[in-house]
């Protein structure tokens, strides 16, 4: 089994949820979004993957972007925010995630405890 391919698939699915979750709290721009997700750990998102993802989410109407001349930067930044559709999608994804996590925790409880020792 190709563990790297499996990890990539796992992270790819979760990346959309992570982006929507961060944007649900704050309107923000690519680098800041990337930093927040990287600080949380586990997802391994990079600049090369976050912008195509943001582009797709915008095309799907889940987020909207606007260019801003920020006082704190010498260059314009594109700020992203959740749309109403995005908020509804996030709510459904969070419910799915909670069920998934609970199921996996039940299934993998012993293995996870053993791996952490």
């Amino acid at each position, binding site marked *: 089994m190709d563990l790297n391919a499996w990890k990539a698939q796992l992270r790819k699915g979760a990346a959309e949820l992570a982006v929507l979750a961060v944007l649900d709290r*704050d*309107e923000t*721009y*690519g*680098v800041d979004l990337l930093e927040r997700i990287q600080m949380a750990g586990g997802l391994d998102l*990079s*600049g*090369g*993957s976050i*912008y*195509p*993802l943001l*582009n*797709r989410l*915008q*095309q*799907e*109407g889940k987020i*909207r*972007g*606007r*260019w*801003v*001349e*920020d*006082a704190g*930067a*010498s*260059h*314009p*930044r*594109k*700020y992203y*925010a959740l749309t109403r559709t995005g908020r509804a999608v996030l709510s459904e994804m969070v419910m799915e995630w909670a069920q998934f996590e609970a199921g996996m925790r039940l299934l993998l409880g012993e293995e996870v405890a053993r791996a952490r020792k």
Partner: protein
Amino acid sequence: MDAALARLSESERREILLETQSHVAEQAERSPQLSVPEILEELGTPEAYARTFLVDGDRDAPRRTGALHGLARLATGSWTALPVLVFVVGFYSVAVLALLIALAELLEPATTGYFVQQTATGRDISFVVSGDPSAVRGPDLLGVWLIPIAISIAVVIHLAMSALLRRVTPRESAVREPPTPREPPRDE
């Protein structure tokens, strides 16, 4: 990168390039020890990075590639698309005419077709679509074969115009915001 994104609309392409520039400027400010090539390296090669946008965008975006959708995109597009629109509408008019001829042949076979009349000076070929039997002179050259021929012409025109519309209309883009900076950030 601009060339690799050629399949996207002009506004979407410009948006992606501007955001890439903004990303590089942001990272250069945050990490002065990094050079621009090092920052760009994180994004991957320009071609690979551009391809990610195409793959990610195409995978889930609804694809509407029908001829009617293509015509609508042309009709609501820029003035530069007008010659193509006229060309496509012209050919579709021919296709509709061919279908009407096939219908006329089906309903009025005796008075529709290519009729050949021998005259003193040679053969006189006339195309007739009429309910009037007096307009018909001589035997019908094609007979019922006019129906499949006319339908085939209409189908070929439709296929050719659909292929043309797929090539000339850019992919659906949801990027609508102007790329120039305007407003201060919203406080939340």
